[in-house]
């Protein structure tokens, strides 16, 4: 739709409405993302006791800090590499070839997103432990009396890589969707076959998407808490997140200033990752318009069975076995007792449903996830448009600022929110602390980046010629946004909203310090139950959480079909 020049000139609010859009987006980022972090930045210098530059120097020079820094960098880079290989590889095989059951395979690839990191870690510990059926199967079973191999740097890297592979997978899939079929078609007509097409055409074109996914995976890995806490702490592989958590847990608000310095180191690492990503975007050719036919799948021919077999084996071991272990633990009669058909019991599920706290936690998490996803979706599209089409300093700043609450470990954002909202809001006299609202405010800041990335990818894929044409025809920025950008970017933005829902539903680290009596979240409940030595109940809650997530996903699928939403709105739909 192109707004006639006359009409747009008659709109007195053209500039105003644009300012409104940008102003709103800026305000959102400022309030939910920037404000808490500014408050945190002020903390080391504001601290009455032990603050100031001497403290900063002391923290920077401490051996614990250096160790945690290098460990974080190592685990972040290595796990990102793994995530790119796994996520990118799966995306190409599942998204580009003629393997059967692609919808189901895609969904299985995304399973790690549905399982909270701490539960995935627990499930893997059981799989890899002294009595592991999996390791025995492949002849690697450790003798009893030996440490679980996952309590190590390697264990942390392995799990972080698998946990974040879906992020690369989603980015690569989005990139694949944007690839024009013409090029592949041309190559095919010129006689090129599968592997060659992938290597010489698809991969180079996919590089920006892979890099974008990798940056997200890296940033998530260095901010991850569930895995680094459950595998890294016992494995004596401290990372910045666990160092911060343990300092805070052990020493309380007194060390807020020290922790703020550690948080800034982490922010620096995340910032480096984000700069790399920005650089990659800058080099990207703005090739793809989505007006060519969708990519036709590459035929696998006689290799199909082999590829399919390998695919199912890999996904079975990495995505389904942990789920099976989780279910087994939920049905086990007691800790450390094997689940058999005879011993299986539903007692833990009964206990969950008899527990009022648990039911409240389910409701709270669902509400938080829905609102965070919905708001993220509404805010991300205009913000992404602003960031991608305007390369003004403000836009770039907004981009980085929006990333920060997500890049930083959740526990830092929660500390920032405590600092900010502990006292009643000036002038209003309303205290957010110890209420549901502080969780919501934190979630709104935390997950913006998660909805923004896909939205930006969506906006970036729009052929600038379209907008240019509209501009020449006289359409104002608002008209161009609503008529051209929004419809084209909406599927990606919706995918972002969905990612937010999935992440927020199982969120742990932000909630860990912000929840209060009556305002429990699912992630906190799972973590608490595990901590209490009641991991069977934790497993039961997790199974319920996973089932609930699946139910939501199914409902969304039905809705998407009924409303005829375009393909790609739901990540697992082809």
């Amino acid at each position: 739709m192109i707004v006639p020049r006359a009409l747009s000139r008659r709109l007195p609010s053209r500039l105003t409405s644009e300012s409104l859009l940008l102003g709103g987006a800026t305000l959102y980022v400022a309030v939910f993302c920037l404000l808490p972090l500014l408050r945190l930045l002020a903390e080391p210098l504001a601290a009455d006791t032990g603050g100031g530059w001497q403290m900063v120097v002391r923290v920077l020079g401490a051996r614990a800090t250096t160790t945690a820094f290098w460990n974080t960098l190592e685990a972040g880079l290595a796990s990102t590499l793994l995530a790119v290989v796994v996520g990118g590889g799966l995306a190409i095989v599942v998204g580009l070839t003629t393997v059967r059951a692609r919808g189901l395979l895609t969904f299985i690839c995304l399973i790690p997103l549905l399982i909270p990191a701490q539960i995935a870690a627990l499930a893997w510990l059981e799989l890899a432990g002294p009595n592991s059926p999996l390791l025995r199967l492949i002849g690697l079973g450790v003798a009893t009396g030996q440490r679980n191999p996952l309590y190590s740097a390697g264990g942390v890297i392995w799990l972080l890589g698998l946990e974040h592979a879906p992020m690369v997978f989603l980015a690569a899939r989005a990139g694949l969707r944007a690839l024009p079929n013409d090029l592949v078609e041309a190559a095919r007509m010129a006689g090129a076959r599968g592997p060659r097409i992938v290597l010489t055409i698809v991969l180079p074109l996919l590089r920006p998407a892979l890099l974008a996914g990798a940056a997200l995976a890296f940033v998530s890995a260095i901010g991850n808490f569930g895995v680094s806490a459950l595998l890294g702490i016992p494995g004596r592989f401290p990372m910045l997140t666990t160092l911060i958590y343990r300092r805070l847990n052990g020493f309380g608000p007194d060390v807020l200033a020290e922790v703020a310095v550690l948080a800034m180191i982490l922010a620096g690492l995340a910032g480096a990752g984000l700069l790399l990503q920005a650089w990659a975007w800058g080099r990207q050719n703005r090739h793809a318009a989505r007006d060519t036919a969708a990519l036709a799948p590459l035929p696998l021919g006689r290799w199909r069975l082999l590829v399919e077999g390998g695919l199912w084996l890999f996904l079975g071991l990495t995505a389904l076995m942990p789920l099976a272990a989780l279910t087994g633990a939920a049905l086990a009669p007691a800790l450390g007792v094997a689940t058999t058909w005879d011993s299986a019991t539903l007692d833990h599920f009964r206990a969950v449903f008899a527990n009022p706290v648990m039911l409240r936690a389910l409701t709270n998490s669902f509400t938080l996830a829905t609102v965070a996803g919905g708001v993220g979706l509404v805010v991300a599209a205009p913000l992404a448009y602003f960031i991608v089409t305007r390369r003004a300093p403000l836009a770039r700043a907004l981009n980085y600022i929006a990333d920060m609450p997500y890049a930083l470990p959740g526990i830092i954002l929660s500390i920032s929110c405590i600092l900010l909202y502990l006292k009643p809001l000036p002038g209003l006299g309303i205290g957010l602390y110890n209420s549901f609202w502080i969780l919501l405010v934190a979630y709104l800041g935390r997950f913006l980046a998660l909805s923004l990335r896909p939205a930006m990818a969506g906006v970036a894929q729009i052929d600038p010629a379209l907008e240019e044409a509209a501009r020449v025809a006289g359409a104002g920025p608002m008209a161009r946004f609503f008529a051209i950008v929004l419809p084209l970017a909406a599927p990606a933005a919706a995918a972002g909203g969905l990612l937010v829902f999935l992440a927020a539903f199982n969120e742990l680290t932000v909630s860990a310090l912000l929840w209060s009596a009556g305002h429990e979240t699912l992630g906190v409940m799972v973590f608490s139950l595990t901590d209490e030595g009641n991991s069977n109940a934790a497993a039961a809650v997790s199974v319920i959480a996973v089932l609930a997530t699946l139910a939501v996903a199914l409902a969304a699928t039905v809705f998407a079909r009924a409303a005829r939403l375009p393909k790609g709105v739901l990540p697992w739909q082809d």
Partner: protein
Amino acid sequence: MRSLLIAIAAVFGLGLASAQAQSPAPAATTKTDLMLYTSQPQDMLNAMISVFNRSHPEITVHFFRSGTTEVMNKLEAEYAAGAPQPDLLLVANALDLSQMKAKDRLLAYPEAPTAGYDPAIHDPDHRYFATKRITTGIAYNTKLVQDPPKSWKDLLDRRFKGQVIMPSPLYSGAAALHVGTMTASPAFGWAYYEALAENGALAGRGNGSVMEAVASGQSAVGIIVDFMALNAKAKGSPVDFVFPSDGVSVITEPVAILKTARNPAGAKVFIDWLLSAEGQAFAAEQGYLPALPGVAAPKTFPAGFVDPLLISVDPEILIKDDEQTKRTFSDLFGG
């Protein structure tokens, strides 16, 4: 597009409505509400509250539950905000409460029904009261360990290399007191923990993480509170518990009323019940060693159980060294 926007609006509306439905009701605005901050496992807490409500249905008990250090840090933040929430604190060890007492945050309750108790177990100024006795000893996996350790020194044996897990004092109040006690005791000291580290011992998080590791066979041996291991054994987990011959540390899980409590009367009713013979018997039913002499030890405890040897050190030292203990431990075992 329009339907999408409507859907979003509906979602937002739903969220707000449901958030509003939950968010008010700050604890203890009426006489019948009580807010408890505690480190007790929540299923045991739910059971305890329902038994309490049989005789006191007029009091609704809300709670915030986490590891002791996290509970105390949350409360610290609430003090900074000027709005401490709980009426009652029920946390692992007396160290935390004596620090609260030192800051003059606890309400004295001289009328508390302490008759029959050893006076030494409660605060002499009636600001906090022991509710049970929890010792820290050694749990082992019965499938992995044929010759169980009998003393703390046994954990330094080469056969347990890399097989010992313990809770972290940075998380657990019981662990903080235990490490403080061991390191302040001349028989052990930091040399013991250095030797443990040398032997590849791991630090988990709370006692629950230790239970998990030992029961599932990830670690053969764990340093842990008695009731957790003995309860798991009773439920059929392949674990057993040893009271080490060279002594155990003990925590009393004290309860206290905050000066800022909104419902001190209700809080007193709750404390009365905890200290009553009925409350103590229920604690034993849950697998806790009662604090009131004469109440039978839990069925989960070994037959003919007699109080084990205690490692005793001056509480003043524990309080003074608390932070340094955590730092040194963290240096030795990571974090």
